[in-house]
């Protein structure tokens, strides 16, 4: 029993580490087009931000990233590295906006290198060599699975931290009080759970995303003269 509690506590703490803004993987430098929404004057208050985040969540992150993480778990359970490579390639081909693609690859590689340095998982060097792109969701799936974090918890961790990174970006772009931030997070919480549950059992062929306005803003961001974020 004591061992069980120890394992569960360890998994929980690893999840916290992965969702923490202390995690030095560079996601704090990505806004996934949010900076352009602010620069173009489309959003400038917490209500607009909350509604926009729902679109990011339901139509960009959940139907794509959750399916990728879940598929990596299934492939990891079968120790099928070819399948994980296939998922990484598939995810790569869904990212039409260059900066979104590059942000995901950069933070994925950072995460992998960090865990090579700080964990005992001895297959990570081999994975680093063989994975074609090391997208963030692929690496997060591999590491979370190895840490025996439950699949649903890994998905919730990713979506929650994606949302907090975007809110943190918004805080640097316009005035947003800490109370408003917590109101947004509280409001999003049930949607985060529903979106994860709605997509966790989908297979890789069902991976999808459609939010033209966000994608267009992500593409426009490439051309902003002055910008704080890499995407």
């Amino acid at each position: 029993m004591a061992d069980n509690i120890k394992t569960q506590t360890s998994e929980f703490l690893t999840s916290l580490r992965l969702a923490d803004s202390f995690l030095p993987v560079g996601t704090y430098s990505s806004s996934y087009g949010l900076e352009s929404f602010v620069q173009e004057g489309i959003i400038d208050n917490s209500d607009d931000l909350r509604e926009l985040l729902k679109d990011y969540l339901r139509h960009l992150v959940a139907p794509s990233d959750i399916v990728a993480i879940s598929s990596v778990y299934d492939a990891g359970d079968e120790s099928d590295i070819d399948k994980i490579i296939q998922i990484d390639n598939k995810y790569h081909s869904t990212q039409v906006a260059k900066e979104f693609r590059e942000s995901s690859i950069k933070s994925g590689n950072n995460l992998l290198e960090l865990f090579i340095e700080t964990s005992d998982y001895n297959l990570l060097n081999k994975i680093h060599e063989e994975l074609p792109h090391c997208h963030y969701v692929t690496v997060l799936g591999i590491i979370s699975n190895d840490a025996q974090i439950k699949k649903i918890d890994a998905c919730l961790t990713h979506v929650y931290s994606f949302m907090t990174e975007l809110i943190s970006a918004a805080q640097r772009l316009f005035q947003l009080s800490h109370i408003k931030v917590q109101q947004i997070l509280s409001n999003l919480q049930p949607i985060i759970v529903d979106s994860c549950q709605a997509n966790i059992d989908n297979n890789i062929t069902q991976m999808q995303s459609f939010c033209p306005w966000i994608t267009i803003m992500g593409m426009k961001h490439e051309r902003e003269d002055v910008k704080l974020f890499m995407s």
Partner: protein
Amino acid sequence: MRNNVPQSFQEYNQEEVDQLPSGSPGKDGIVEAVFTARDDGMTNVSYQYARPPFHLMGDLHHDEQLQHLSTLYIQNPSGGMTQGDHHEVDIKVQPEAQANVTTQSSTKVYGMEANYANSLTEIFVDNNGYLEYMPDPIILYKNSRFHKRTDIKLEQGSTLLLSDILVPGRLARNEFFEFDKYHSQLTITYDDNKILTDNYVLTPENTDPQRDGFMKDFHVFGTMFIISDDFDSHEVNDRIYTHVNETDEIIAASSVLPYNTGVALQILGHTAQSVQEGIDRAWNKTRNILFNVDRRRKRTY
């Protein structure tokens, strides 16, 4: 059943009007075409097959800008797609051949009470082949259900211009997003690399498409992919982006595709015409870059 029917027509009046089941003649349309370059550089259609409701005339060489290019119009005199319809289009472009494939009018997908309509398009462009596959818009009528799948395989040195315009209803009669469901699937491989997977389902009843992150107050969504390993994707991206954004009726942006294999352009507009104009601008600029010529004038026969 009609009332007050004369005796002479009573027999007919007993008959139910049954729609043709899916799979029957006229419901399963097929188009196949192979484009081949001759020794003198001229491209011709070397094989073609059409099953109703599709119809093909021969190819045309009416492009005043690219005289070796073969243009093929996919004709459909049936007026549109109804429940249970299944269409297949299979286009092959052989090495060095140059082709433009388009339609004569928009694809209208009518309202449905049972079943759905679907179309499967398969495209193969061989080494150094050039294809412009630019059909007219798809219009999704109230209560329509449409599944569209496009699978594309491109060999090294080949070039593809692919456009798509989605119109969510008969806009002039204030029909916006009243279709039941639309599912679009697109996969493109270039030299055996999977460069693009685009998959989405739109169900307006469940999600308001005019939310901020989605389409905002726009109605029409257009995409264009300009794919080749024969140019500098970043330079083409810059030139396309600038040229398309010279018109202010649309919002448009472009980016470089995975493996630097070309450019993805996305456009939102209020009308099909404005989005088409954006795509035509990108088409024109691409031809400027590749061949130093303009796009051809639109001549639908």
